[in-house]
């Protein structure tokens, strides 16, 4: 059983997952941030590998990606850095990024490298479900990787069931159809959508992401799912200054 399944078996509520971009703010910060986040109480880490054209992201994560790329981050360097990961970090860790860098690295090589450094799963938003199922699923499973799919308020019931069937970690619920970095506003409509998903009794746990930036919005997410995912707000908080201090200050609001 991989670390993701283990976590959801042991913990059902208030699961906090944090996204950050590898190689940002400093090229060598990747592992230090991971370690600080685990120490400060994060349950899951999502490490973004940067891409030049991140269409699903808002300006903050896009800018962090650009900075990391300018500093020289790429998948070769990232996997080199991640060799230290499991010496320092025990919680589940996912890699998140766009499909083209993975294709160029080689899907099989990518999955093997993930397994070698102790990565538990991937989120590749622009990898279509049908391609995953047909070409990549076996390679992911052979390497013990969970593939995390996204669901939006517009995703049909049939498709959600299909996604549930293909998932083996958790399902990433988008609070709204939006790019990253906007504020979660739980309207009646959103509430209906979250309740609808909750009532579907999916096999996989769910995590709500996109627009979660504060304790208040995180608590709202936890009402409808097993936990929440924070990206933009965290990336903003570590832009300048000491990594460990920034991480502790940010996490304090969520873990107090």
């Amino acid at each position, binding site marked *: 059983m991989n670390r993701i399944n283990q976590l959801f078996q042991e913990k059902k509520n208030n699961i906090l997952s944090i996204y950050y971009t590898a190689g940002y703010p400093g090229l060598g910060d990747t592992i230090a941030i991971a370690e600080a986040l685990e120490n400060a109480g994060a349950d899951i880490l999502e490490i973004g590998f940067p891409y030049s054209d991140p269409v699903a992201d808002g300006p903050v994560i896009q800018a962090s990606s650009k900075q990391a790329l300018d500093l020289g981050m790429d998948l070769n360097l990232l996997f080199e850095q991640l060799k230290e990961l499991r010496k320092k970090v025990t919680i589940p860790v996912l890699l998140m990024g766009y499909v083209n860098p993975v294709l*160029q690295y080689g899907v099989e090589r990518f999955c093997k490298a993930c397994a070698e450094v102790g990565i538990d799963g991937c989120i590749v938003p*622009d990898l279509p479900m049908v391609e995953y199922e047909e070409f990549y699923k076996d390679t992911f499973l052979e390497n013990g990787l969970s593939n995390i799919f996204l669901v939006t308020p517009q995703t049909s019931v049939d498709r959600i069931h299909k996604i549930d069937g293909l998932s083996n970690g958790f399902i990433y619920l*988008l609070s709204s159809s939006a790019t990253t970095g906007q504020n979660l506003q739980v309207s009646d409509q959103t509430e209906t959508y979250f309740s609808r998903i909750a009532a579907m009794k999916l096999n996989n746990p769910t995590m709500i992401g996109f627009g979660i930036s504060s304790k208040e919005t995180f608590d709202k997410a936890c009402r409808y799912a097993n936990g929440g995912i924070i990206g933009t707000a965290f990336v903003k908080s570590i832009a300048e200054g000491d990594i460990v201090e920034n991480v502790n200050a940010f996490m304090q609001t969520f873990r107090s």
Partner: protein
Amino acid sequence: MIAKLKICGMKDPLNIRDAVALKPDYLGFIFYPASKRFIADLDPVVIRQIPLPVKTTGVFVNEELDVVKKAIADYQLKAVQLHGQESPDYCRALSNDAEVIKAFGIDAAFNFASLKPYEDAADYFLFDTQTAEHGGSGKTFSWQLLEQYKMDKPYFLSGGIGPESVASLKQLSDHRLYAIDVNSRFETVPGFKNIEELTKFKNHTMSYFVNEKGYYGDFGGAYIPEMLYPNVEELRENYLKIINDADFQKEFHALLKDYVGRPSPLYLAKRLSARYNANIFLKREDLNHTGAHKINNTIGQILLAERLGKKRIIAETGAGQHGVATATVCALRGLECVIYMGEIDIHRQAPNVARMKMLGATVVSAVSGSKTLKDATNEAMRDWINNPVDTHYIIGSVVGPHPYPDMVSIFQSVISEETKKQLLEQTGNDQPDYVLACVGGGSNAMGMFYHFIDDEKVKLVAVEAAGKGVSSGFSAATTYLGKEGVLHGSRSILMQTADGQVVEPHSVSAGLDYPGIGPQHAHLFKTTRAEYVSITDDESLQAGLLCTQLEGIIPAIESAHALAHLEKMTFTGGENVVVCLSGRGDKDMDTYMKYFGL
């Protein structure tokens, strides 16, 4: 279609069902008892139930005529394939009952003149490897021998064609090649076909156009985040239904005629013709309303958006031509319009920005990344993600997730549709020798190629922008510099680093300044159906000046790239060459003025 597909030697009912689902053009059953694939006691109902367009085909070897006729009736066969020494009269005797395919075993000793008596007797020939056992050897014969075949009758190519034959089949450019016949090389055991291999073979070999899954060979698809899935799926489910609707067609063509000013002329450029020793025809897309071919697509998409109930239109633009064409149709139909344009392009293309604003559009500056077309496209996609219900995104080229490349090429295909008619009127022949067009994303080229793609006699030439030279680091020659990958929602060829980051292109013409090409172009490139060449900034500007001075037509610098390639071609005289003059040069006067010191 490159050619039709015949799958032969079926006998297992479940395997037959799976093969039918693949929709081959012909499905063959062996009625020759000595064959390993003899149907034996297969229930005739299994064959009778197979629906058209799959043509069920009975294969016979020197069988009694009455037996064949009875089999046609009992099994409701649509075609018969005669593999023995059947005479021309024997073939004729069956021609009222079914299509007649007469097979011949080919080896170095075969006398092609012996086919003459069969010319009127059979519908098709089938050329198979010569064996004592009437075919089924699993070996190919030397296809070079077909050079001795001089008749016009279309033929099936058979004998040992397997999954590995894809590359060599794509090299064949014989318009008489009607169908590919496959059998034992796709089998696990005799009579039992590997459906997965056949599916791959069919998708990769048999068509230059999009398949049911949204792919052109290895390229295409819809690589989009879940947030865009419902929008793209809505479009995919509806685009062909809407486009094929009579009411849509009527409105579309009326607007093309009365608003755009179509048909655009096909003009025989006499002085250019004299210079190049060929008949140079210019397809005058520059004479369209708004000055380029872009309006063909925006008219189509705005009518489609209306039928999908959309209230708001977004688009990306590089030079501003697609932005102007989009803002124009939005003004025409009274829809809200937001155009994304790179910050750098906004400064470079001030007159077009003013046009869009005057037409009522909001122009939003894309300040991320390199601040040019690629980033404007990213911003438009982000807008669409954030506005999934009421907004339609009018992509301006044959790029993006399926169905965009197919949809845009259908709207632009009016270019080649008209060209064929005009050529026929002007020359008595609707087949040109060459068709040339420039390629950025590739929409004018796809429109110009569309109705010629399946006619292998017509040579297609796509001209990319070499910028300051393909090795200069300032280039947009995608097929030369790029690798396969995913950009803006489809798998294609794009300029990128080893790590898969998209590289910023360069071209003097903003319309060709794009790091990718449409997936169908990538397929035409990989299959070598079209030739991809490149022209530098300098060469294109010189060609623009030449066309202006010889023909009195100032071309857009994009179109001047296509014209420039004429300098590099050699003609023997009398060839008919069509060049797509995709746009007019008014927008480029600043560049021309600076370059030539005007």
